């Protein structure tokens, strides 16, 4: 009895304020869509970081004369540097790459631009140690120790580029979170407004209910459920839009960088991770807003 009565009240209430209901669903959906987008960016950053974690190296470039004279790293200062690096507790692995190998690699990288390869000479490329660190987050240890040593020309830190890349992604994330927050305020006000409107259009029913001794839960649960139901629909719409966005253009736009391993793609697993979060937030926020509104504005 009780469940079917409350349910039919919810359905009539939503249909009666259909325009407000739609507005509520749209704002909720957009705000959740942005929140979900932000969460996906967070996931992407994490995944991409993992991708790079074991690839980040510190490159110690040797001076021109060392690069030219010592192809096999047989003499000092090259040999000394190598043994020092190999026994360094912060270092996991050291690879020596001489000028010719560097040139081969250069040719491979710029295969597609033969004019660039033509311009380059092996003499322009230095020999280097490619150092893999035990803790990739602390390249400064190596930089401090080896900077300015004999034979060392410069030290390249790949993680600096990554930091820049990730800070761009972080910016995207913060922007979506910010807009999601602003939209969430609009959604909250709409939920509150709709609950009030709904309670007002049904004031006769509510008046009679109070008069014949219906409990507060009985009189107010329909309004609360109305808010929660629209919240759930809004979340489902947001999830559908996220899936649609992934299938329709995200996969295409990011196809190139994903293939070359620059970023990790948004997987179905990521969506499966984000969707229940959006749903729970929608339910929690709409129920809370509905409850507070009823407490503040609707006489019991």
């Amino acid at each position, binding site marked *: 009895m009780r469940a079917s009565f409350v349910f039919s009240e919810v359905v009539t209430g939503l249909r009666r304020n259909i325009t407000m209901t739609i507005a509520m669903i749209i704002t909720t959906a957009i705000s959740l869509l942005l929140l979900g987008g932000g969460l996906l960016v967070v996931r992407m950053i994490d995944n991409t970081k993992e991708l790079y974690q074991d690839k980040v190296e510190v490159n110690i470039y040797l001076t021109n004369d060392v690069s030219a004279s010592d192809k096999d790293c047989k003499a000092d200062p090259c040999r000394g540097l190598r043994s020092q690096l190999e026994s360094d507790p912060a270092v996991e692995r050291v690879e020596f790459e001489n000028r010719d190998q560097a040139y081969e690699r250069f040719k491979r990288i710029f295969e597609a631009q033969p004019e660039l390869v033509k311009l380059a000479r092996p003499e322009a490329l230095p020999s280097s140690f490619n150092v893999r660190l035990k803790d990739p987050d602390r390249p400064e240890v190596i930089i401090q120790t080896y900077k300015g040593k004999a034979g060392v020309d410069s030290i390249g830190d790949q993680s600096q580029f990554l930091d820049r890349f990730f800070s761009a992604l972080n910016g995207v994330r913060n922007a979506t979170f910010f807009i999601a927050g602003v939209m969430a305020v609009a959604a909250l006000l709409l939920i509150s407004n709709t609950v009030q409107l709904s309670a007002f259009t049904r004031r006769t029913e509510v008046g009679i209910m109070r008069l014949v001794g219906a409990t507060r839960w009985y*009189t107010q649960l329909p309004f609360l459920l109305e808010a929660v139901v629209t919240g759930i629909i809004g979340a489902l719409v947001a999830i559908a839009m996220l899936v649609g966005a992934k299938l329709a253009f995200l996969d295409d736009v990011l196809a190139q960088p994903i293939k070359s391993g620059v970023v990790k793609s948004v997987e179905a697993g990521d969506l499966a991770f984000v969707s229940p979060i959006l749903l729970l937030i929608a339910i929690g926020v709409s129920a809370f807003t509905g409850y507070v509104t009823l407490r503040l504005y609707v006489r019991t």
Partner: protein
Amino acid sequence: MIRLEQVSKVYKTSTRPALENVSVQVDKGEFVFLIGPSGSGKSTFLRLLLREEVPSKGRVYVANFDLTRMARRRVPRLRQSIGCVFQDFRLLANKTVAENVAFALEVIGKPRHTIKKVVPEVLELVGLEGKAERMPHELSGGEQQRVAIARAFVNRPLMLLADEPTGNLDPDTSQDIMLLLERINRTGTTVLMATHDHSIVDSMRRRVVELDLGRVVRDDARGVYGVGR
């Protein structure tokens, strides 16, 4: 059944108290008219009994409930033991006669089989058998008030409060409604009726409590509305 002990009620927006030092006792099964001009405190009196308001001073007891000390969550229990009828009927326009009556039971969580059984019974009691599927706008004023009375009585309350139930009805129809209220009173239900209707009060010869400017100015066991009014 009802006991008011030196009750005063002052509304924040008004300087004059709506009720001042009112003491009234109504026993179980009594039929009482509450009369007085507009603004005399009749509505406040009824609202106190329903605990829509709490008194500023004094004590209110209804059906063994001490309303001045009652917790908010117990109020529904009190209201389930009181039936209410109003001048403007307050029916739900989008529900049939039977649905309007059933609504009062649905919202207090009565099981469906009980509702199916008692709604036709109470419709017969108020003389609306055969009109269960009508909509309120398809009924006369008197019939609409019968629906309201059926709704107020369907849960077999201990007490029926009627706030000018005949205020919108012609004299003949009013008389029919009074007969119905009398019949309900004979089942042992206490009836308290606020009214302006001289002829009804005079013809019924029941107890009359008269309010004026928030004070009880008369309490006759078998009264009339009053001379010269």
